Each structure stands twice: as structure tokens, then as C-alpha cells.
């Protein structure tokens, strides 16, 4: 890693020195892409009913939905880390038959329409689902219509982002450091905990951020699996969707709140990481 870092630093210096005019072939599509991404945001800002923002934000339902969104997205991210990082490690480090198939399966939630994901979750974890029926009978646990259900739906949809990101980081990592740790007497778990994971930390954090963002914006799987009830399963995206039915202005305000909070959190985290590195 020292070697890699050195190389990267040198590359950085080179970029400082060689400063040509950026080619138009790249700049033009880049600008078009940027405008395309930013323009809808501008639309929200321009059309926002700024005069009533204060009173709308004061509504307890809004704060409730926001709190629920943040809490559930954070717990979902925690679950993704807990299960996704070992899964990524398995895919990156342990050769087993069918690894390609497993990798493809892991990305299924990415291509699955979230609503379909929600239905699939119902079929498995619902009250009459394959596993859910047993959970209900044996432990009296039902997941649909609960906050746990929200967390589960978000975890399902967001986990692939984490797994893919972490697997990429692990693949890119220099495994010789793990070998060095092994010669020093470290078993695989110690190697993973003290060498692999800390060295893949940037990838893990990037994955966690993606994962959290995806969970925060989750709509389809959540409303399908967990339903919509204020204070229990109504997250911000659900509140936005329903507000759109009757009061588009309120929907804009809610969207802006969600946007502002997520941007603030991401920026704060980013500053902390770069400050620590």
C-alpha cells in the first residue's frame, strides 16, 4: 500500500504539472450530463413554495417521517455492513464452484423493480410466506406493516450496492499484505479484521454511503412490504408520494427536506473521512 500510495501521490503531482486545455469531446457530454442531473433539482428549488416551508416543516407528521427515514436507513446500512461485507469477502477471496452465479444472484435486487422486490419479500416473509408463516407461528413475529419490515425492505434493496463496492475494493487490494499477516501468525479471521478490512476501509465506506443513500430513497419495496402508516412505516419517500396525490407543493417541500438532510449527512461524513485520512 505504501508503494501504491507513492504511485498515486506521484500521479497527483503529474496532474498538477501537466495542465492542458480539457478536450471538448469530453467536456461537452460532461456538461450535458451535469445539466441533466442538476436541472430537476433546480426545478424543485424554483417551484418550492418558500413562503410556507416553515409551517409545513413544523407538522409533526413530517418530522416523524424524517426521523423514521433516517433511523431505518441507518439500521439498514448497519445490517448491510454486517452481512454484506462478509459476503463480499466470500466472493472476492474464497474460490468456490458457482461463484459467478452467486455474484449474479447478489445483484438481482439491483435489476428487480423495487415493487417486485416488495412482493417477493411478502411471499417469503409475509404472514403466509415461506418463512414468515413459521416465524408467526413459532415466535409470533410478523414483519409486514412494522418498522422492522421497513428496515428489511431497505436492506434488501440496498445491500447489492454495498456488496459490489466492497467486493471491488477487496479485489483491488494487494493480497500480499494478507500473506504477510499470515506469516506473522495471524489466522484468517485476524487477517480479515486487522488487515483486510482496515485496508479496504475506503471501499467499505463508499459502499456504506451508497447503501445508505439508496435505503433513504427507497419507496417501492418499502410500501409494498411494509405498507404505509405514519410514525411506523411511513418514510419520507412514501410521504412525498402521498402528498403528491393531493398537495404537490407539500411534496416539493418534503423532497427538499429529504434532499437537504441527506446532502448534509454525506458532506459531513466526507469531510470527516478526508480529515482523518
Amino acid at each position, binding site marked *: 500500500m505504501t508503494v501504491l500510495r507513492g504511485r498515486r501521490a506521484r500521479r497527483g503531482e503529474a496532474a498538477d504539472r501537466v495542465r492542458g486545455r480539457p478536450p*471538448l*469531446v469530453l467536456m*461537452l*457530454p460532461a456538461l450535458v450530463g451535469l445539466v441533466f442531473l442538476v436541472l430537476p433539482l433546480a426545478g424543485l428549488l424554483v417551484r418550492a413554495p418558500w413562503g410556507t416551508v416553515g409551517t409545513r416543516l413544523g407538522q409533526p407528521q413530517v418530522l416523524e417521517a424524517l426521523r423514521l427515514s433516517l433511523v431505518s436507513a441507518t439500521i439498514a446500512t448497519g445490517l448491510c455492513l454486517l452481512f454484506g461485507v462478509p459476503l463480499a469477502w466470500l466472493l472476492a477471496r474464497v474460490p468456490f464452484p458457482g461463484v459467478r452465479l452467486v455474484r449474479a444472484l447478489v445483484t438481482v435486487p439491483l435489476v428487480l423493480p423495487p415493487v417486485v422486490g416488495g412482493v417477493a419479500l411478502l411471499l417469503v416473509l*409475509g404472514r403466509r410466506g415461506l418463512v414468515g408463516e413459521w416465524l408467526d407461528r413459532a415466535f409470533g413475529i410478523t414483519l409486514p406493516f412494522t418498522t422492522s419490515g421497513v428496515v428489511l425492505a431497505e436492506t434488501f434493496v440496498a445491500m447489492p450496492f454495498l456488496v459490489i463496492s466492497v467486493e471491488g475494493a477487496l479485489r483491488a487490494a494487494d493480497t500480499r499484505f494478507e500473506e504477510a499477516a499470515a506469516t506473522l501468525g495471524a489466522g484468517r479471521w485476524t487477517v480479515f479484521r486487522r488487515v483486510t478490512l482496515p485496508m479496504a476501509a475506503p471501499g467499505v465506506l463508499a459502499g456504506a454511503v451508497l447503501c445508505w443513500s439508496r435505503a433513504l430513497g427507497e419507496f417501492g419495496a418499502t410500501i*409494498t412490504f411494509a405498507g*404505509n*402508516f405514519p410514525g411506523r412505516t411511513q418514510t419520507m419517500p412514501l410521504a412525498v408520494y402521498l402528498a403528491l*396525490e*393531493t398537495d404537490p407543493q407539500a411534496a416539493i417541500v418534503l423532497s427538499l427536506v429529504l434532499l437537504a438532510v441527506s446532502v448534509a449527512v454525506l458532506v459531513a461524513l466526507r469531510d470527516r473521512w478526508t480529515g482523518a485520512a
Partner: protein
Amino acid sequence: MLRRASVAAVAALSLAALAAGCGDTKDDKSGKSGGSGDKTLTVFAAASLTETFTRLGKDFEGTHPGLKVRFNFGGSSALAQQITQGAPADVFAAASGTTMKTVADAGDVSGQPTVFAKNRLVIAVPKGDPGKVHALADLAGAKLKVVLCAEQVPCGAAAKQALAAARLTVKPVSQEQDVKAVLTKVRLGEADAGLVYRTDAKAATGQVEGIEFPESAKAINSYPIASLAKAPQSALAKEFVQYVLSQPGKAALSEAGFESP
């Protein structure tokens, strides 16, 4: 030289991509009803009308050679919003008078909207009725898992009205975004009961059971239809509205479980 050419190519492509987004919905405005040539009639209709209108559209196409009827089914208020934002639609059929009113108030309706069907709520329960629901009052049972539409959408407003009329307090486990979502939860057995439109229960016969209840008379939903002011095919639009109001239209609607106005 080559480089310059590639720059131009990328620029052209970028502009073309932007332009494509704006220009693809322009239809031939000079068309007359029943005439030759390809014409498209665009109908925005409430999701609950999906099956009935698809059939009516086919029949309408049959009597108008060269005509293609295109549907956009969705939540009434979402459709209303698309129309007021300038979506090129010819006909709007809504599931509630209020949503039609927002479109009319925006000046987007040509003439007067006409109510062509009515729908009432029924209690939908999973096959076999595991929660043993017989009447609306049963929904207030503490152990029952009930799902309703959110109050913001027409079926939720109707449910609220019916429950208020019956002086009942029901604590739903979820307020779904539309009636189909309520139906899904009931169908999968996640909910013991839900309030849906009679037409929805009828369409799901075999998977859910619909239980009629007298209080539903207090919350009858009207379906208004109107041709739109900025309709690209205004003549055809009026003709389609008439067709829906005609005898074949009524028959199809009643078969789906709608009541006549």
C-alpha cells in the same frame, strides 16, 4: 481534422438527444374522425378502469379503421397533474369528481364532464375469510389487520366517509397508496380485510371475497369523463366520450361491477 469532426459529432449527438426528449409526441392535428391514415387517440384513465377501457378501446378501434387508441392508466390525481402540466391527452376519465375538478379548474376540459359510472366500496377479505368478517363493524376488531387506502387517494377518502357514516373507528395497519395495493395485501393474506371498490373485488374473484355493506351507500364514487381542451384529436375525443356513455359502454361497465349513474 479528425478531431474536429469528432467534436462536432459528439455535439450533434448531445443536441439530438436533448431534442428527442421534446419532439416525439407531436401528432398530426389535421385528422378527422374515421378518416384514413394513422391516428392516435390518447386516453388518460383511472387505474380501476384498466380492464373495461382496454376492451372498449379495442371495440372503438374496430369501428374506426386506422385509429389507434392509446391508454395511460394510473392514479387519478397523478393523471390530473400530468394533464395540467401539459401532457398531450385527448380524453380524461377520473375516479373522482375532485380530481376532475382540478383539471376543469385549470381550464383544460372542453365542455362539461359527465359522470359515466359509479363504484362503491366492499370489504375485501382473503379467500376463506380467516378473520371472520361479515360486516363493516367487524373491522374495528382489535386483532384484525385492516388495510385501507391513504386518505389522500379517492378510495381512502371514500373509506373514511363510509366509516364516519357508520360511526366506526378503524385502526388500519397500513394506508396504501392505491386500491390495487390494498387488494394485493388482502390477496396475499397479509391483511385480514381491506376496503376496495366493488369492481376491484370482482376482478380478483377467486382470490379475494367481496362483502357488500350498507354503509357503502354513503361513499359512492363517481367517475366523470371529459374530452380535453387541448386535445390533439378533439373530434375523436368527443366521439370516444359518447361511446363510453352509449349502450355498449354501459354494458361493459356494468359487467365489471360498476353501477350506472
